[in-house]
């Protein structure tokens, strides 16, 4: 019987190895870390010629990762299979600098849509452009089209929104406090979709959070959302899905939001049956953090566990859904079991990680 047990264990171990996924993380000073998720070993440190990575975007076919860098305002494209840089360039020249952070490639992989600012050194002065929608040609390695962002849509931290592109590449969606619908041909805002008071849902104050990575797909933007009802101001949280084709927003409430604390993201299993979040209470030296493990079929919290949290951190889920990751503002990843919420191990990455987050590929 013992032998049979060993055989099954060996088979399971084998199958895990066969499905081992790769984790990409942006890090200082100019590296993309490539980690084998099964072992936690760093397999490669890809040097990014244009500098420090600040955002990453996985293409819809999951074949390429598009990285924006800040040191020389560049873009790097990494092939997820070969794990090699296949395109790399900087937009800066001795007299012109650009600033942008994040964006989305079009379905052909030729163009990259983002929000951008241009700073030009002239003979007698510097000029600073207004915030612009910009199109970067990844073949010509240049900004080929821009259009000023309307005054009413200008925000601090211009490009720090969530970008989505329609399947036909004709419509760009910038998801922030509201959803901007932008025609990619003219780079003009065609519509502004307000979800702060959605009709017929009985709730208001809806705000988008960061995307739920495990549920990312080309046709919709899936996000944590917080909302409250208009009568007794009961705050709730849940999953929101913005459908790019129909431009409609569907709500899936999960439960009451923490009263005095905050929530650091939401991770959801691929089958949508389990969810995890980090609830923080109090601030600075009194800050306390808990994992909440939620059964999404019954919307009940299954278990909670306090863990020693950092001042700043990011929250992630492993590719196989078995580990929770706490990382950021450091050189390591703390890994916790998704069922027991207990600490498993801490992996030393050897490089401080940036705010670019992580991308996991199978």
């Amino acid at each position, binding site marked *: 019987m013992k032998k049979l047990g060993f055989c099954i264990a060996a088979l399971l171990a084998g199958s895990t190895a066969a499905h081992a996924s790769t984790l990409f993380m942006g890090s200082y000073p100019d590296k993309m870390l490539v980690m084998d998720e099964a072992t936690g070993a760093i397999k490669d440190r890809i040097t990014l010629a244009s500098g420090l990575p600040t955002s990453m975007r996985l293409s819809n076919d999951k074949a390429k990762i598009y990285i924006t860098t800040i040191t020389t305002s560049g873009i790097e494209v990494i092939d997820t299979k070969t794990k090699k840089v296949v395109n790399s360039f900087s937009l800066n020249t001795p007299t012109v600098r650009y600033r942008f952070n994040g964006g989305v490639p079009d379905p052909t992989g030729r163009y990259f849509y983002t929000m951008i600012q241009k*700073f030009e050194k002239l003979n007698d002065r510097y000029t600073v452009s207004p915030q612009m929608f910009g199109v970067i040609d990844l073949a010509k390695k240049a900004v080929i089209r821009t259009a000023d962002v309307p005054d009413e849509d200008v925000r601090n931290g211009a490009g720090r929104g969530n970008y989505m592109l329609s399947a036909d590449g004709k419509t760009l969606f910038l998801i922030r406090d509201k959803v901007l619908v932008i025609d990619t041909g003219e780079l003009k805002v065609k519509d502004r979709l307000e979800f702060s008071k959605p009709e017929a849902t009985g709730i208001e104050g809806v705000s988008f959070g960061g995307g739920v990575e495990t549920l990312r797909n080309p046709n919709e933007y899936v996000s944590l959302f917080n909302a409250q009802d208009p009568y007794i101001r009961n705050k709730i949280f849940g999953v929101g899905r913005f459908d790019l084709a129909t431009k409609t927003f569907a709500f899936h409430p999960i439960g009451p939001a923490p009263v005095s604390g905050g929530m650091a993201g939401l991770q959801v299993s691929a089958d949508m049956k389990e969810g995890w979040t980090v609830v923080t209470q109090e601030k600075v030296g009194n800050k306390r953090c808990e994992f909440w493990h939620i059964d999404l079929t019954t919307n009940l919290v299954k278990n909670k566990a306090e863990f020693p949290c950092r*001042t700043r951190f990011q929250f992630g889920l492993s590719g196989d859904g078995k580990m929770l990751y706490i990382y950021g503002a450091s050189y390591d990843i703390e890994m916790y079991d998704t069922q027991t919420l207990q600490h498993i191990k801490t992996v030393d990455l050897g490089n*401080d990680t940036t705010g670019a987050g992580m991308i996991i590929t199978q």
Partner: protein
Amino acid sequence: MKHLKPLNKKALRIEETISSTEEDVIALQQKPMHTPMGCSISFSPGWEVDAGGGTAGLCQPAERDIYDCYVTCFWPVQVPDHVNYSPDWASNCATAAKDWRSLDIIFP
């Protein structure tokens, strides 16, 4: 309105007020926010004080925080400016908390 000329001091002040809003000199606090390139307009309190005025809420150790300040200009006086004049400050130091001695020396 162009054919009208102010005849008294009050009318002159009104004209000056209106014309001042049409100038291309924009106050930093004016909406929409006009943010010049660089870190010179960041005025966060001294290195390093947390949001509560103490140090208990800082990264432990504080070196864990140094790179994000370096890139985002959070303490622009105390930390070199990655974007403008010190892009190579951390080129030889992958992990600030362990290897801070490899950070470059900056001379203002």
